[in-house]
């Protein structure tokens, strides 16, 4: 279960101060598939970064079960991220110098995981014939699928997605969404998707709408 309490994030100081998140309280149960929607600048990406421990909240806390992210230092947060969270971003964000396989296996190696189900992943994601390729040699959909494989390699409980279909054509976008839905249903992964696309939000079990840094609808 993921729970936030009075989660606040501000940037800058004095007159230039911008409040990106303003006292957000949300609870996401294990196995939920949640869409966070809102206009850009509403704070949804900031929320995702805080949920993923990429940023430090100005105020408030994020709990993963009983673990308080705000008490962790960067090293511990990174360790936590490595083992418990998988990220999928709009721009596939594969490391260009590594092949798809190396990209996928990188977190596993960092986590010193010996047994991984990468071949199952490749099959499931239909990138078996692409694993030896560099990102530049792959299509957008393939890249995104590889990025999802990387997010899943350490078998995290939570998958955080920031506009996962944003940069894909319609067909590829649908494939990715189906995949995420499948992961949610079959493996009971918690999936949190940041999007501004109401169609994608409609495919999730729950929608949280953020506006001006506040939860408008949970």
């Amino acid at each position, binding site marked *: 279960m993921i729970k936030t309490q009075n989660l606040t994030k501000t940037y800058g100081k004095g007159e230039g101060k911008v409040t990106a998140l303003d006292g957000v309280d949300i609870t996401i149960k294990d196995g939920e598939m949640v869409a966070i929607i809102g206009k850009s600048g509403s704070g949804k990406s900031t929320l995702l970064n805080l949920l993923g421990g990429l940023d430090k909240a100005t105020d408030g806390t994020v709990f993963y079960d009983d673990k308080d992210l705000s008490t962790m230092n960067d090293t511990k947060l990174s360790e936590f991220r490595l083992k418990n969270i998988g990220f999928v971003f709009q721009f596939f964000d594969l490391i260009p110098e590594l092949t798809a396989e190396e990209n996928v296996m990188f977190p596993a190696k960092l986590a010193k995981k010996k047994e991984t189900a990468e071949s199952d992943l490749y099959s499931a994601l239909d990138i078996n014939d692409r694993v030896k390729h560099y990102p530049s040699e792959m299509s957008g959909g393939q890249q995104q699928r590889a990025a999802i494989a*990387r997010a899943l390699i350490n078998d995290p409980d939570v998958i955080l997605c920031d506009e996962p279909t944003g940069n894909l054509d319609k067909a590829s976008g649908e494939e990715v969404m189906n995949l995420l839905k499948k992961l949610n249903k079959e493996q009971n992964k918690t999936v949190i998707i940041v999007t501004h696309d109401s169609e994608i939000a409609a495919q999730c079990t729950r929608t949280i709408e953020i506006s001006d840094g506040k939860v408008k609808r949970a």
Partner: protein
Amino acid sequence: MMNNNDVTELAEKAKQGSKTAFEKLYKEFYQKLYYFVKQNVSAPDAAEDITAETFCSAMEHISELHSNESFVGWLYCIAYHKCADYNKKTATDRRCIDGAAELAALSEPVFLPDDYAVNTQTKQQLQAVIDSLPPDMRAVIILYYYDDLSLAEVAKVIGTNKNNAAQKLHTARKKLRSKIEKLIGKGSLFSAVPLSAVLANLENAGLLSGAAATAAALGAAAAVPVTLSKLSGGTAKELTRFTFKYWSKHKKSLAALLFSGVLLCAVVCCAFLQVRGEANRQRHAIYDIYGQYDVMLINADDSFLNDLTERKQPEKTEVINVLGDIDIYGNNFAYGYAENSIELAHIPFKSGHLPEKENEAAVSIGVLKQAGYNGTVGDTIRIGGKEYTLKGIINEEYDNRIASQINNDALQNGVVSPTPIPLIYIGKPANAPKTLYTITMFSGVVKGEDENTTVFGMPINDFTELVSEEFGAENSMWSFQLNNNDPNAAKITESKGTSEDTRWLMILLSIAAVIAVLSVFSILRIIFAQRRNTFEILRRIGVSKRKTYVLYTTECLLFIVIQTIVGFGAGILFYTILHKFQVNALEYADYSAFTSDRLITNSTYDPFVIAALFSAAVMAVSYLVCIVLSAIREHRRIFGLQKKTARSMINTSLSCKIITFIQTISLTLIILGSMLGYIYYSSDGKAFMNYLTYEPPASYDIAGELNMEQDGIEEYYCCQKPNPIIIGDESNGIPLMQPDYSSGLDDDTVNKLGNVTAAGEITGTFLYSDKENGNLGSSIIVDESLKDISKISNKECRDFFKNGNIGSKHLYSVTTKLVNEQVLKSLESSVISGKIDIDALNSGKEVIALVSFDTDRFKVQEELNIAAAEFNESYGIKSVSSAKIKIGAVVKVSGDTTNRLLSHVLSGNRDYYLMTTQQGAQTIGLPGAKYTEMFSDCHIDGGLIPPSANMDKMSLSELKHKRFLEKASSLGSVILLIVFMAILGFAAYFNGIGLKIMLKEYEISIMRAVGTSRSRIRRQLFISNLRIPLFSTLLASTAVIALQKHLHTMYDKVVSIAAPNEAGVIEFTEDINQKQHTLSTSQSRCLWFLP
């Protein structure tokens, strides 16, 4: 891609009902149209629908298309109206797009054609800007710039006339520009980001870098394992592997980075070594005059020395034992041996070294010259009747030591040599004879300055008193004085910092260093910009910031270590080549930067430490600033770079190469310009110019008066001319060594050589007569000392002359010239009486009288008695021969009648000579009758000259070549360095421009997108990029001045330590007004101080 004809054709076919043709058109225009529609309606789904509808509608109404050529415009027209309908329906006001919406658009997917925007983020941002325009303007922009419709077609599509469309386009463009500027920050669109960023970052990093750089540099090697250990086990391995993988994929970047770093290190290392080498030269030159000791005592007894050293232990003590002195041509030279290697006396060797074994010797070149000896190391010489192998030739500077001369007057009445420092060293004899006196030298016993000076730990006055007491207070001719007005000290002060070679080298090398720094920096900027994204991904995966930076740091340290090592290797190699060139081709003194000379190593900074610190600090600063920068970027995200590398950017921007080219030239010009300004308008610069334009005196002068170039002499061969032999003065005695100054060339050989003028001079010939002024012509001036042979002091010589039946006769000294037929032929016009008969000359019956003024001295066919003395090689007279000769002709050689060459060959310091050929001289029995000089106006075949000739050769072409090398050493190396700098500048500039294009990618693509032509962008970039050279010039000039000041200080330190004033050295001088001090042979002791 279809061309217009294809489109027209297909439109016609479609009109006629061809489904395939319409399908082709659909495929061709779907994406474009979809994009156009998408810009005009908000929802992507709606856009798809509208696009589809547009094509349906087009298919339905294709028959209504009037002209096939305007199919595209017609299609857009339909789409535009459909969009307008849709927008009306949904009533979405797209006009009011505020900042937030603009940002919202940033995260939307983009379908811009690839030509216009290079990376995804650029596409997004560009789209956001275009989206924010009112719909009609948006449509105009897209149609005109993106879909390449003509203004007329655009007008048709949006349903207006051409003027109105143009108006709309103009307004749209204006709005676009202002929006772009607002987005990026006004005025910064085309600013020189890289360098202003560098400047800003240099300011920011100032404090940080100081501490960080030093720490990083000092602990570079040690820190690598430390930092690696910070990464825990598996992570370390994985991240390290990742880093290697990264660099293996970016070999070119790696190579560029390493190249710049290595170049930087090499330049710095070489510069410091060169400075150090120059400093060594200067310092050695000073030591050559002064030696390295503070106090020198002659014949001080052991108890006194013990007393002194108990007061203060000297840093070093050395002893020379002088065995006696040897008379060479009237001058006495001390000879002796050194107990150990002579370091404090600092003996400068021209070649070779001190003797090591008993039968070896090292002799000052001055002594050798005095003896007319022109030998080389390895020869056998006789000193005091004993044979030695010559192991070393000591340079002239050593003869000019103050210590060699200071007591000249004081010592000249004693037996002790006037040059108490021995100029002749022999190996320590097995059974060393009793020494005449010892010289004990001390270093590190004089401290402080002026009144505070202490010697052996006691005040100067006390020391004076003590020494006077010890050496005889009653003979108080010795005194001490502080060396305040020593002319030599002044000389040294002048020489401080005047090594122009060092200075100009430093100026140029420091500019090169600055360029190399910029180069490293800009490459790093590119690399870090490229990797920023990667490290962001790493963070998301779960690599902590700390680990990321540990990785960075480790990598940096590794680079520093590698670059330093390789760079130093290259620097040393370059310096070694430079040094070898200077020593071999330019004949510089061979004092390398690599010296083990204790005093130099003690008093100068270690060049390696300095260079290592400097270059490591520079690189560490560059790396650290980049790390800091990348950290700042993470927060600011000013430059949203994704995956495109600088390289691919350069590849896609061909035009940028032209910009680069022009800018590099301007950069180089401006740097050189500032340098030249510095040269012309600063005093240092003027000194530099003086050095460059200084013309050493033409070295084509030979034999004192001839100029090879002017007098048409291509080659000149010469043996050492004999010193005049002086007989008759008791104190001068007989010469110790009689040098072999003949060439060994005879007439036959000379004739074979071709167009050669050969000449020789035979001394030791006399005319003699029973009576005073007998039959020699009334006007010959008799050398008084030769009048009566009985006055010759040397018994052996006197006896010889008596036995030769010449003893009681009157002798007249005469010099005989030896010439070849070439000279004789050219003399024919100068004959004033008689005639030149070559046969008579060769047979020895006749000689020619050569006069300058008095034509009455010799009468033709007058009979003369001639005698000649032949000397032993090393000592005394060997034999005397005599003959009767006649004067065949009298020749007058005054300036008018002979050319310069002939004048030189024939003239001397006397008014008259006798002249004969070699064959004639041999018949008469004149000893040493060999040519000593040869001149030729063309190349002489060296093979015809026997090796035994042992003549010094001078060749005009060789001299010219040497002159050329000398000039090349100044001008040439300046040019080389300028070229070197230009290459560096080029490299730096390419890096800089690569970086700039990458950072400006966004702006460039926007400019392209809004329809700015490539040439216009080029122009704008060119103008804005002038900041780069201006900035680099400022930076370079500051660095040049700062660096030069520092290095100068460092360099001065080397010199000033040796300067007497600053070292507080005192000098002991004799007071000549007091009564003369006489030194007894064995007990006399003297002392003096030397700087």
